[in-house]
């Protein structure tokens, strides 16, 4: 039972990005970088399945610049067994990433693939669904619970207005939502041990995948600013202001 997980190196969730004045992008040169939080949950889930005896090997993949090795090493320190770094400078889009993961899945033949539901930089929420489509496999997105038994994954999904539970024959793709688990902290001895774990490097060209972007970014701008607000002194003043603004029923 092999699990494939994918991790993305993104700007840390607590870093407030700034738009460049010329509208060409966001300034992330000095930003603290981290593993995408939903990918961290995906990694944690894979490790818990291995610790519970339901999986034997966890392969972790990242697509990005050489620095993405740090993110892979973190996943290895958490407990993944082996890393694959697909070196790529510049923009990646979910479709291209899904094609890379599909190419790797064809040689690695994992029984289960776990991805984060969304990266917190481009907020696309697409890669897992696309990977499942390219492989012709079932998908369970926004997972809050995952169990494996008899070649079947049973997944509870967070959907608008409640929850939905699915059965999927393996191999299948699962995307992790916020409440699937709480990822562990990485201990120093495990960080040191992770340096010795195998990490293979490859490229999109070697995998036969074209990563040329399909979307052209024309401009990046600040969100519309809001007029400065006021502090009111009392509930009575608040109610009066809201009545003035005609927003109360």
């Amino acid at each position, binding site marked *: 039972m092999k699990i494939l997980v994918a991790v993305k190196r993104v700007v840390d969730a607590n870093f407030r990005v700034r738009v460049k004045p010329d509208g060409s992008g966001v300034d992330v040169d000095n930003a603290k970088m981290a593993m995408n939080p939903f990918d961290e949950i995906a990694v944690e889930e894979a490790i818990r399945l291995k610790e519970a005896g339901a999986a034997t090997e966890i392969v972790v993949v990242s697509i990005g610049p050489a620095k993405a090795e740090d993110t892979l090493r973190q996943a290895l320190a958490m407990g993944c067994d082996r890393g694959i770094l697909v070196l790529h400078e510049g923009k990646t889009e*979910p479709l291209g990433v899904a094609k890379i993961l599909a190419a790797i899945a064809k040689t690695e033949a994992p029984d289960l693939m776990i991805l984060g539901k969304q990266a917190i930089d481009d*907020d696309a*929420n697409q890669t897992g669904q696309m990977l499942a*489509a390219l492989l012709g496999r079932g*998908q369970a*997105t926004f997972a809050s619970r995952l169990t494996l038994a008899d070649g079947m994954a049973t997944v509870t999904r967070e959907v608008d207005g409640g929850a939905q539970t699915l059965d999927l024959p393996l191999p299948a793709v699962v995307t992790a939502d916020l409440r699937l688990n709480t990822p562990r902290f990485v201990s120093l001895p495990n960080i040191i041990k992770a340096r010795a774990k195998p990490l293979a490097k490859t490229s999109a060209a070697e995998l036969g995948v074209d990563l040329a972007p399909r979307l*052209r970014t024309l401009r990046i701008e600040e969100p519309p600013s809001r007029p400065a*607000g006021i502090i009111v002194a009392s509930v009575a003043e608040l109610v009066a202001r809201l009545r003035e603004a005609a927003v*109360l029923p």
Partner: protein
Amino acid sequence: MTTLLIADGEPAAHALTAALQLGGEVHVLEVASNALAERLADAIAKLEGYDAIVAAATSTGKNLLPRVAALLDVMQISDIIEVVSPDTFKRPIYAGNAIETVQSTDSIRIVTVRASAFAATPLDGVKRIDLGGGNSELSRIVSDEPRPNDRPELGSAGIVVSGGRAFGSKEQFDALLVPLAKKLNAAIGASRAAVDAGYAANDLQVGQTGKIVAPDLYIAAGISGAIQHLAGMRASKIIVAINSDPVAPIFALADYGLVGDIFTLLPELTAAL
């Protein structure tokens, strides 16, 4: 130019507005809100004659459309807030701290729509098409567990009252927010901290990766205002913040701020309405 709109409930009326802005005719494919993606995506990808495929960014739309996009070898554009032209769209990135304008170079546009950014257009009179759906050999529904909810739907309510960690317990969250929400005919929302603490159901979380809302009035009570929460409500017309911490980040976004204890101010507000 013909657009296929995937409709899975009320948010589809907002997505229709965006679909009509692409120009040309719109056909509607109605799907159940618990529809699975596998069989449906195959059937949609086989349809011919559509230049664009559009759905609201509901949990159903977000689950289905990327699967369709990959089958058609198209890069999807997620969660648009503006149609600039039939191939160019604005969408938020980095939790709404930047807005990107992107142009598709694919021959088909596949787009999910942030419902709160577009007005609703009734679907009456729009041409319907029908396809099979449901279970397949790839996935099967074991159970659907809808959460009982007697409040208006969070994504489309005119007024939203949201609570944070400051409430301290589910009992106090309900005791203070439900009477206020009832008086205002408002939906109830929550911060991540309040959901994590079990005060509110998971699908009531307002934020970057939860529900995105833009009501006429958003009342944030006991919510400090993490970047991720602000991403989910910053487009609200009027924002009221009630918090005991005068330097809480939520006040920077609020039109009206009230500094003080939610346990005295909320009952006072409910009584004053």
